[in-house]
């Protein structure tokens, strides 16, 4: 309680400069009844809901209010990746590889008007993981871009539909080997691949352990001390789903022309099914950007390679629609897939499991059970009796009292900022751009340990349950982003920010032909003679005016000490650059509260 009190006092103190500055600027902050009630609140919200606040967007959100902003963002059309890559391919002037896919991601998240949609798509890309670090996908940026656009389309849609589209996407088919997965063949000792069966449950939907509606683990044995977790599924379940996920191939295959038993059975059309015509670049192939199909569907021979025979043990849980969670023998690839995805989707774990993962990407690494419970409730029922509404879920995450009101959130609320979000926040706040409008930032994992859809494995860049050894673990806290905060990446990201601030600035002749993304320092150079106003502006843009007095004083003193005398004619710019770099590398900033 005492800590809480101290923090409350700290909040009061830290609000003082904000109030003072409001007085200085004399700008009344018009606000909608539901808020935000201050620029600081608007900035804080935009840090969670977008790729970084800008001065304009802070004002705009203030005038609109949260409700209108959500309505606008839910309706905003998706900024797509694929058209950009397709156009480059058609033009044929430059190579179209994974760096170009990174480029269009940067462009959309920096400049798109669908900020919330992009932010949620980025979060989903870290849950429904595919990666270009995979032999089958590394040469195919368009297919991965198509998958990302799918996440964007569904960002406020229904999770059941998203799960199906993701399952049938050829990139996911390759990444987790459901593509060309086939029914068992005793003679050849072939049995269905279990990769997708396992990961769709473990990572995309229900997780390993049965959960209460608030995300805590169900205690399988209340008599025994401690919580005895209950597994969500077992090997039989995995085998059951593995059999369901069989029989699918590109949509572009020549169908079977004879039954499997016939001597003229054309099995090679399954094995060597092309994703498109040989004279067309495979990055434009329809097979990579249309859902997979059951081979033989609609022919008299049926879904040849689907494991129709045999009962399939799916998830069993209270209220499960299938008796005992068993999908009866028979059925085609498509109907069985639908039944299996329904079986997953209605598992009571999905709301709290997915809700917590999205909360961790948007607001805090350590939501209280009550917070998870409220989000899971919104997932369960969007208010109109519909389950799985991602828009309602995202809104519940962002508008939850624990997300909106730091005073009532737990002491440890917040998260270590994702490295990429530190970069986007800087660039959006400083209106960064290159001269020709291109973004040459194709390999950010080198300094950020992170690049969209380039994680080392299906387990993303970090695990949701990672606990940093030491105090964080001793407090029982989760700290996913600390898993990539290694000595190497602390150094590289700190240096990369140095380059992006001290070298890549608009007007620097030193950048030569590189034409990198350049921060525009001019707006803030105009404030450089007023260190308090400069730091106060950055306090708003980067820290939602929550900067501690100690940090504020250090920065003002540092900036004030840069003078024409000791720094020459560019002293104003140095003030701005040093302020930016010191803030963006400081522990107080790096931990978003």
């Amino acid at each position, binding site marked *: 309680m005492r800590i809480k009190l101290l923090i409350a006092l700290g909040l009061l103190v830290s609000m003082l400069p904000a109030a003072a500055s409001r007085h200085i600027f004399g700008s009344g902050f018009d606000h909608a009844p539901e808020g935000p009630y201050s620029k600081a609140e608007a900035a804080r919200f935009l840090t969670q809901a977008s790729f970084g606040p800008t001065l304009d967007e802070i004002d705009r959100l203030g005038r609109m209010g949260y409700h209108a902003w959500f309505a606008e963002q839910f309706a905003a059309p998706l900024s797509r990746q694929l058209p950009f890559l397709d156009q480059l391919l058609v033009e044929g002037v430059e190579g179209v590889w994974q760096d170009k896919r990174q480029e269009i991601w940067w462009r959309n998240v920096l400049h798109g008007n669908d900020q919330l949609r992009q932010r949620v798509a980025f979060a989903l890309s870290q849950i429904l993981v595919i990666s270009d670090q995979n032999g089958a996908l590394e040469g195919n940026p368009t297919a991965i871009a198509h998958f990302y656009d799918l996440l964007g389309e569904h960002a406020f849609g229904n999770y059941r539909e998203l799960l199906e589209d993701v399952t049938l996407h050829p990139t996911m088919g390759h990444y987790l080997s459901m593509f060309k997965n086939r029914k068992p063949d005793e003679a050849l000792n072939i049995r269905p691949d279990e990769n997708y069966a396992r990961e769709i449950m473990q990572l995309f939907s229900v997780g390993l352990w049965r959960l209460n509606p608030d995300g805590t683990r169900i205690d399988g044995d209340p008599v025994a001390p401690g919580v005895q977790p209950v597994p969500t599924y077992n090997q039989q379940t995995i085998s059951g789903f593995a059999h369901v996920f069989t029989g699918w191939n590109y949509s572009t295959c020549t169908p079977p022309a004879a039954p499997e038993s016939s001597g003229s059975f054309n099995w090679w059309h399954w094995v060597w099914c092309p994703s498109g015509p040989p004279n067309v670049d495979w990055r434009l192939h329809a097979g990579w950007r249309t859902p997979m199909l059951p081979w033989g569907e609609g022919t008299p021979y049926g879904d040849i390679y689907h494991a129709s025979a045999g009962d399939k043990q799916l998830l069993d849980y209270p209220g499960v629609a299938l008796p005992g969670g068993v999908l009866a023998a028979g059925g085609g690839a498509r109907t069985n897939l639908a039944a299996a995805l329904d079986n997953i989707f209605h598992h009571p774990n999905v709301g709290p499991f997915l809700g917590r993962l999205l909360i961790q990407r948007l607001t805090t690494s350590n939501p209280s059970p009550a917070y998870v419970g409220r989000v899971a409730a919104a997932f369960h029922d969007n208010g109109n009796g519909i389950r799985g509404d991602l828009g309602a879920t995202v809104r519940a995450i962002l508008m939850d009292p624990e997300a909106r009101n730091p005073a009532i959130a737990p002491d440890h609320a917040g998260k270590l900022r994702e490295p990429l979000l530190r970069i986007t926040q800087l660039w959006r706040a400083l209106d960064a751009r290159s001269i020709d409008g291109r973004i040459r930032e194709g390999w950010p994992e080198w300094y950020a340990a992170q690049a969209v859809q380039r994680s080392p494995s299906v387990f993303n860049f970090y695990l949701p349950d990672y606990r940093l050894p030491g105090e964080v673990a001793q407090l029982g806290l989760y700290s996913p982003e*600390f898993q990539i905060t290694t000595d190497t990446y602390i150094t590289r990201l700190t240096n990369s920010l140095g380059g992006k601030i001290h070298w890549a600035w608009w007007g620097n002749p030193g950048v030569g032909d590189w034409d990198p993304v350049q921060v525009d320092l001019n707006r803030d150079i105009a404030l450089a003679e007023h260190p308090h106003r400069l730091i106060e502006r950055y306090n708003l843009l980067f820290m939602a005016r929550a900067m501690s007095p*100690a940090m504020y004083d250090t920065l003002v003193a540092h900036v004030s000490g840069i003078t024409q005398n000791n720094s020459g004619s560019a002293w104003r710019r140095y003030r701005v650059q040093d302020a930016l770099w010191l803030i963006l590398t400081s522990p107080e900033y790096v931990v978003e509260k």
Partner: protein
Amino acid sequence: MSRSNRREFLQRSLCALAGSAAFGSMFGKLALAQSAANPGRMLLGSDYRALVCIYLFGGNDCYNTIVPRDGAYAEYAQTRTNLAVPQSDLLPLTALSGPDNGGLFGLHPEMAAIQQMFHEGRAAIVANVGPLVRPVNKALYNQPGTLLPAQLYSHSDQTVLWQTPRADATTRTGWGGRLADIFSASNVNQVLSMNVSLQGDNVFQAGEDVAPYFMSAEGVEEIDLIRTDLPNCGPNGHWNRRRCLSFHALLNQSHQHPFERAFAEKTRRTIETSAEVTAALALHPESDAVFQPFRDAFPDGMPHLARQLLMIARMIRARFDLQMSRQLFFAGLGGFDTHDRQLDDHPQLLATLSRSVKAFYDVLEAMALSDSVTTFTGSEFGRTLTNNGDGTDHGWGGHHFVFGGGVNGQRIFGRMPSLALNDNPDDAGWGQIIPTLAVDQYAATLASWYGLADADRDDIFPNLVHMNGPILSIEGPDLGFMQTPG
């Protein structure tokens, strides 16, 4: 020193470290300067020991790595069908002893370098190791109530099971980390962690008190904008001094949030350590003649694993400069999750492993340190015996390699599992082979060679006491593949 005393000692050391790591201290660099000036001061050489883990990410298909070359080949070929390695391609192994159930074996044709090391006595094979809570056979496995590791066959979980190795409980520390909790105190250098990872974060090296230090195969980088190459941000008037001071002021101010404190601490450690390691590595550049075996093995450029091992060799060579008498390294090779295209991908991975390890030991021989450095493989699981068409799926037990002059080489330890397709007594049901040795035993044997006292063994490997009885191919805490250190 009892364990609790040792812990207190360690805590005190760490407190001292925390104090010295505060801004301004250049403990590390001073120590470095002293040792350079007076290299004879440290009596490290005779007692130096290092463990190197090469983690094969994704689960190595050990059944295509080590293959029967006698009559049992027919059974293997029948089970593996189109994935089988041709019998005539196998590189024969002539073992001085083992496996316990007999049989002749060969290596995958891409592993000539390891074949050579095996016959030189610098490599041993440990058969069918995996995570266990209790020894189990097929009957027990199928019996309700048998204690089994949770979430078998999952990458992330079996990686944790391998690296902790606590199949019986949830823990966030690994055995390498717990070893470091004990042995770090014996390093004069209390700034650089005993545990160094070239492959990012891992559970294996995380201890209660010790966190691993990460570097890359390219070395250590430094934060440019605060560099002064001088202590205390340089003298008055240095061009970087004011920025450096302000950076540290923000780092060292009092922080409310535990994440802020953690980030500040990590950043401080990064700065101090990078300066120290950079200085030490500069004394042992990659171009040194002693590292020639790496260039010879890979004239067209080194794969990532070879680069990692080369950097480890440089760190080992810099042990006097860094004042380290115990080191534990983590390196990795990815891509073993061969659900598909196994025949294309797997041979290249084995070739990389084989040639990289041999180059590493050729360098260690030249440094007369082969006996002091033991390298071992880890991997979350072996793969299924059965074939999914063009690949294999997640299994359970798997075979592993141990390399070094301290190894009882040219031997195969433990029992090879049946490779039968039907009625296989070692098959858990889907081609997943039930381990006949526990990771706890494998790790404890290595830890014992590293210097872990028998009395401390149960602290580090609490589940080891259960690894007895006839189900296991070898009972008890020592599998015998390491020589008793002299």
